[in-house]
């Protein structure tokens, strides 16, 4: 192998610098005399190197002064050395998503969506992947329900059992003190209430019924504690009681 390269780049003895050994072209073996003619070399590769086929013996390459020298590939202006974020004008998006902290939960992305959406979909069979892998078999058209079909939706009166009441439970949300909340219809409700909530729907804010009741009770307790009529208030100041009168 080394002899072939040295024959390709054959030079006179005087021209061979001592550093050639550092380049791996043979440790000190005298090179053969240079060829007489200045014709481009057409060295035939011995079969020991393996016949790699026409891909190394292109007609264009054969005419070059250096064997296997090919044309450089067409330069692409857009390479990895370019900042692709600025090239595709994604600086705003990058600052928006990577500069600020993006909240982890799905409910932060879809705050208006009811139900417990932060739990994994695989738990209750509501995953999108299962929908894609096993799409439900259904017809192509949507036909309204007729009267006969609606008879199947006659329900028993009364509240649902506890095990089925989880659907409408909202995840606990942080309440800001400064905002005025417009309450959405609460559960359970009489049938007229959903129609009345159309005006409140525009605000799209909701509360949990048990949470509201608890907070109302807490507020009432606090008010009763601070009132002068409450017997269990130690050290109540007369100035505060006079302000209430």
């Amino acid at each position, binding site marked *: 192998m080394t002899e072939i390269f040295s024959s390709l780049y054959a030079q006179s003895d005087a021209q061979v610098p001592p550093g050639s050994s550092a380049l791996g072209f043979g440790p000190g073996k005298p090179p053969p005399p240079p060829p007489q003619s200045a014709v481009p070399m057409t060295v035939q590769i011995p079969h020991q190197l393996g016949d790699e086929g026409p891909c190394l013996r292109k007609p264009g390459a054969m005419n070059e002064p250096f064997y296997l020298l090919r044309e450089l590939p067409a330069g692409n202006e857009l390479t990895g*050395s370019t900042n692709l974020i600025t090239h595709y004008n994604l600086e705003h998006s990058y600052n928006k998503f990577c500069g600020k902290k993006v909240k982890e939960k799905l409910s932060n992305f879809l705050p208006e969506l009811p139900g417990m959406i932060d739990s994994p979909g695989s738990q209750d069979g509501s995953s999108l992947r299962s929908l894609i892998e096993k799409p439900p078999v259904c017809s192509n058209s949507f036909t*309204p329900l007729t009267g006969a079909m609606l008879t199947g939706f006659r329900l028993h009166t009364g509240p*649902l059992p506890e095990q089925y009441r989880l659907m409408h439970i909202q995840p606990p949300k942080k309440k800001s003190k400064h905002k005025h909340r417009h309450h959405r219809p609460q559960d359970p409700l009489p049938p007229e209430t959903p129609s009345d909530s159309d005006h409140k729907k525009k605000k799209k804010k909701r509360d949990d019924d048990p949470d509201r009741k608890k907070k109302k009770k807490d507020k009432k307790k606090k008010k009763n504690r601070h009132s002068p009529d409450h017997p269990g208030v130690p050290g109540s100041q007369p100035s505060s009681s006079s302000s209430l009168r």
Partner: protein
Amino acid sequence: MAEKFDNLEEHLEKFVENIRQLGIIVSDFQPSSQTGLNQKLNFMITGLQDIDKCRQQLHDINVPLEAFEYIDQGRNPQLYTKECLERALAKNEQVKGKIDTMMKFKSLLISELTKVFPEEMAKYKAIHGDDPPS
């Protein structure tokens, strides 16, 4: 472009609200609620029809399946966008480093070869032109 998304979003919000109200009716059902229930059921079907009509406007929109993984895990899908940007930037920096290193190696190799084989390198430069300094 944003209009078709707004249209779909509006229909989806109405549909979800209808379903939510349906759940409220069912949670404590009364006999007088039957007509309202039937109405909500038919609203649900018309809502699905409206959403299906929106599909034609959005036939060219592609959503990566990896974003669905985030949704199925209960995570914010914007995290997927964030991680895509971060990975793109990291890969960009990595490739830029490789390109810079290869450019330096090329210039160093040419300079060293020129010292050892000046005539051959002169021919090489005549063919490929002078390489720009790294």
